[in-house]
């Protein structure tokens, strides 16, 4: 098996408390992301989701552990890992084109103006913002702003895309259409993506694997759910797939109860270095049954899952 694009090895985040004790947000987090894979991370607020993303981006150092990208340890931010921020983070003094061009000229400082312009236009067209090039963020709707953020991240042609709850600030309709577009763009460009979310449906629609985190403090990866739905899923058809409800019920069940209880009742064979891979979609096509007894496939008996391409 080829080396994964990014490997997270035992990262932790701790803060020094006021009384001298250290507060651990999360610890012993291990997982890997393959090239071309879409991985989502789900967990409640306070489990350190955004911190994990910031560590992957190189914006924050971990208190322990490493992140290895392409055989090298992450020491700081890099143009190879583009970030789509929760609140778009566009510069209000720049136009759509200006915001994207700022990123493009940062990546390729030697490019001519015309080349930068043509390159930006390509990504503006990709996110369907043609005609809004000269508009400033204040003149755009929330969904359009997030599109500019997506175009800015994609335009630097990163090896990996990191998304921090990219759709959480949008209304449901806009969110749906943007999710469809992100899924289309990622399929077209075979982009490797790591996304933070707390939306179960979003994770099932977009992600190939879904990393489940327990509640903080001392959050851990409880398990990794393999999305066994066909990759060509869309928002309109996903809920008719036979695997959809078993997976969804499994995730909801985890968020509602198991994420709280996990730390108290840890399975005997739990190994944080190899969090169990589960495939609730394959367990049963009967959603009712899956909801009542979500099947955990022990890592030892389960062959390594090759993600469907």
């Amino acid at each position, binding site marked *: 098996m080829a080396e994964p694009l990014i490997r997270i090895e035992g990262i932790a985040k701790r803060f020094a408390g006021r009384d001298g004790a250290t507060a651990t947000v999360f610890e012993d987090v291990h997982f890997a992301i393959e090239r071309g894979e879409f991985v989502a991370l789900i967990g409640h607020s306070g489990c350190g989701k955004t911190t994990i993303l910031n560590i992957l*981006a*190189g*914006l924050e150092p971990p208190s322990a552990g490493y992140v290895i990208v392409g055989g090298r340890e992450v020491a*700081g*931010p*890099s*143009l190879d*890992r*583009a*970030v789509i*921020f929760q*609140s778009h*983070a566009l*510069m*209000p*003094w720049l136009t759509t084109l200006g915001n994207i061009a*700022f*990123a493009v000229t*940062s*990546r390729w400082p030697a490019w001519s103006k015309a080349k930068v312009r043509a390159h930006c236009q390509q990504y503006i067209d990709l996110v369907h913002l043609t005609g809004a090039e000269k508009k*400033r*963020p*204040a003149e755009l709707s929330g969904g359009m702003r997030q599109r500019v953020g997506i175009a800015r991240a994609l335009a*630097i042609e990163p090896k990996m895309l990191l998304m921090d709850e990219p759709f959480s600030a949008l209304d449901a309709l806009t969110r749906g259409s943007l999710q469809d577009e992100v899924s289309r763009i990622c399929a077209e460009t075979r982009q490797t993506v790591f996304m933070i979310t707390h939306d179960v449906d979003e994770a099932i629609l977009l992600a190939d694997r879904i990393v489940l985190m327990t509640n903080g403090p001392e959050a851990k990866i409880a398990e990794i759910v393999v999305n066994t739905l066909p990759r060509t899923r869309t928002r309109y058809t996903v809920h008719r797939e036979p695997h959809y409800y078993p997976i969804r019920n499994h995730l909801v069940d985890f968020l509602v109860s198991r994420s709280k209880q996990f730390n108290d009742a840890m399975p005997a064979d739990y190994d944080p270095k190899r969090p169990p891979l589960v495939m609730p979609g394959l367990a049963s096509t009967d959603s009712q049954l899956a909801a009542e007894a979500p099947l955990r496939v022990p890592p030892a008996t389960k062959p390594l899952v090759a993600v469907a391409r």
Partner: protein
Amino acid sequence: MERFHAWRAPALSLLLLLLFIGAWHAATLPTASRQVVDPEYAKLVGAAAATGQKSAFPTPAEVGAKIWQHLKEPFYDHGPNDKGVGIQLAYSLARVIIGFLLAALVAIPVGFLIGMSPLVYRALDPFIQVLKPISPLAWMPLALFTLKDSGVSAVFVIFICSLWPMLVNTAFGVGAVRREWLNVARTLEVGPMRKALRVILPAAAPTIMTGMRISIGIAWLVIVAAEMLVGGTGIGYFVWNEWNNLSITNILTAILAIGLVGMALDLTLARLTRLVTFPE
């Protein structure tokens, strides 16, 4: 808010102005009663004023005539003690602009440094806190002694009074740049110069411009007092000179001119601030 027509506010302003001028006119009307006055006093203040027939304070019409006269010939120069209001205003404006620009040249880079480095901020903060509340005029004797030139000293006083608001606002604006914009710059591996000019400067520009607007307002306040002290030229000197000439009419004209120029300076800076402010 209650809706009203656009013309109502200016109409009310005009009405208030007319009321004010009317009251002024009524107050300065010559009184009919004759009274006996000390001839020495009459000699000093003028017969008409001493006898109460006419107040020494000019009527609105007199001030209006004087303003018209100044407007017709604002730049005449009849020797050191008789120059047009236009020339005097130009001297004051030149001093304010030179001092202000010199202050901006110092305050904006230093403010950037303070805003970007918490260490520099802590190191310089005590100095700023002590120097900021000092009245700019208190520097005047020191400036006259060291610089040995009254004109340069006036510029120095403007420099020192414009410095602090710009310095403090620049440092604040630079320090308060949104974390996410800095994170964008970091993930794009933007170099420090490019980050300062393309991200921090535009993000802090509205705050910096607000500091400049406060500074120019203070500078225009201070220049009048400074020129009263140093003398020679300038609108402040003009006011003091006309006080010595006992020409209340000219003083009133100068006061009006000072107010109008101050308003123009403030409006200019306000417009520039709007140019660099973008809603999010």
